[in-house]
């Protein structure tokens, strides 16, 4: 998939270049990337939800045999929310400020047909009982501004799963929440995967959330997928120099590190590349600690490493 944006100031931004991703049922795939890596563009294009100035240059999104990008608008509307769901980063912004949250979940059910008003209400109450337990009754009748950030995000998740979709895409769902609430949301998602066989694509810039949660991790940089492999392996022994550098940036709580806190934290020199021009060589090359001569001349392809992992780096092939 390749996606290009036309920003209001003119010119073009190549937000996503040649991204290939496969997911099998029941998998939890984590997409790890920073701002500008193309991870949100990827999420939006999976459901053809790009803003007006975004163009899908090439690619397909094949869900169980159907290419979603070839569907008509009303067919797409039927897929969204019922077969594939998407939740966003800011739950406060994703909910209508003037509608009760219970009603907003019912709206999703209503859009995908089937039950009458009573049936919908019962389904939603049942779902809220599952997610909120004792407080479900009060929460059903509240407005978004009366709920905390964590509660709002749980409502967004309820909206996303009420029609029992097969795939849930979560785009930085915990970025605006505190660490304890973050963990609760991750645990909720894990529970949903276990109990409903939900496939989850979890996009984040916080690597630690994926540990023990994701089965596979995909790392993105400058609009490309640079690594794709088993979660444990990627976190313990990352192959791609970017993944390595990124994980080094995050401090640990190991005793030795905690006392040395006058020392600087390792960081990645330089800034992320400007995506308004297509790069000739590897996008990470200017900042890479392991760069070689070939890296500035040609762009690396995806190379397979042992155990089915993939890395886009000349260190592993080419």
């Amino acid at each position, binding site marked *: 998939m390749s996606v290009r944006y036309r920003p209001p100031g003119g010119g073009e931004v190549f937000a996503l270049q040649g991204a290939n991703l496969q997911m099998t049922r029941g998998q939890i795939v984590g997409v790890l990337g920073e701002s500008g890596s193309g991870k949100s563009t990827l999420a939006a294009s999976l459901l053809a939800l790009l803003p007006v100035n975004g163009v899908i240059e090439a690619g397909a999104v094949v869900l169980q045999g159907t290419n979603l990008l070839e569907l008509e608008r009303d067919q797409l509307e039927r897929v969204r929310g019922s077969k594939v769901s998407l939740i966003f980063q800011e739950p406060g912004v994703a909910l209508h400020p003037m509608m009760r949250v219970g009603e907003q979940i019912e709206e999703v059910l209503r859009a995908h047909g089937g039950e009458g008003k009573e049936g919908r209400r019962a389904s939603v109450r049942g779902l809220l009982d599952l997610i909120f337990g004792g407080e479900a009754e*009060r929460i059903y009748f509240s407005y978004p501004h009366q709920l905390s950030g964590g509660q709002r995000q749980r409502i967004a998740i309820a909206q996303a799963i009420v029609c029992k979709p097969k795939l849930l895409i979560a785009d930085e769902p915990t970025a605006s929440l505190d660490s304890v609430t973050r963990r609760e949301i991750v645990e909720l998602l894990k529970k949903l995967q276990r109990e409903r066989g939900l496939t989850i694509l979890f996009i984040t*810039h916080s690597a630690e959330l994926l540990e023990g949660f994701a089965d596979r991790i995909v790392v993105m940089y400058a609009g490309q997928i640079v690594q794709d492999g088993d979660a444990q392996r990627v976190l313990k022994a990352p192959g791609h120099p970017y993944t390595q550098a990124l994980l080094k940036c995050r401090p640990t709580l190991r005793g030795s590190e905690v006392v040395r806190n006058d020392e600087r934290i390792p960081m990645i020199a330089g800034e992320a590349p400007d995506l308004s021009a297509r790069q000739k060589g590897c996008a990470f090359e200017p900042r890479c600690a392991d760069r070689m001569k070939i890296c500035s001349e040609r762009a690396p392809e995806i190379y397979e490493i042992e155990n089915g992992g993939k890395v886009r780096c000349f260190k592993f092939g080419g």
Partner: protein
Amino acid sequence: MEVLLTAENLVKQYPSRRLGGRDAAVRALDGVSVEIQAGARIGIVGVSGSGKSTLALCLACVEKPDSGAIRFLNRDLTQVDESELREVRPQIQLVFQDSSSAFNPKFTAGEVLEEPWMLQRTWNAAERRERGAELLVRIGLPGNIVDRMASDLSGGQRQRLAIARALALQPKVLILDEALSALDYSVQAQIANLLLDSSSKAALAAERPAIVLISHDLVMTARISEEIVVMESGRIVERGSTEKIVRAPKHATTRELLACSTGVSGKFNQRPAV
């Protein structure tokens, strides 16, 4: 080290507008006392609603506590009138989580930086330009940023600009309220290094601010701070050196924060150096 800023028994209440519609007042701060020494780095951690942001606002004299004292260099700031407070404010600077509303969107980055100097009437235009450029270099922003619109900057650049602006007046205390939490890790590392540099012993004593980092992220806080204070429901439940808090946490809240700072299997924070 001398004690710069202390909060003594702060109490602050807000009317609540949560579920149920009852006008129950919420005690954001319930008898909080904190001591900040010159040049120290102290972290205040807790979840949303623990009162840490309210504490930040009170320390920076943006909000007034209902009771308690805030002493800065032996002057009680809660008893002082606005004109005296205005003299003190440049010495206690506050940086928020989201700087997108902290700048006038019509300003360039350079103008944002120079504004505090203009308001304080220090230096003329040429000197301001020069100092501004120096400061930008210090915080690791490229020189050409001076003429970019503040609203055009990325999140990480905006935060760095906000910190630069806060450092511009050489404050004695720099308070950061969740200023790093929403940023990418590589950017967090850059800003953390910036903070470490500005408070390192190598820097001039006059330019070295005390740093108060308020966050829910125990990992980054532990990395930067020498001392950690843990808050819950408006109270301080545990405090101590970073090492003690991380290695031997006593209170349940501290242990919960530690547990939640890592992934579900708990190994990420103990991962060996790569």
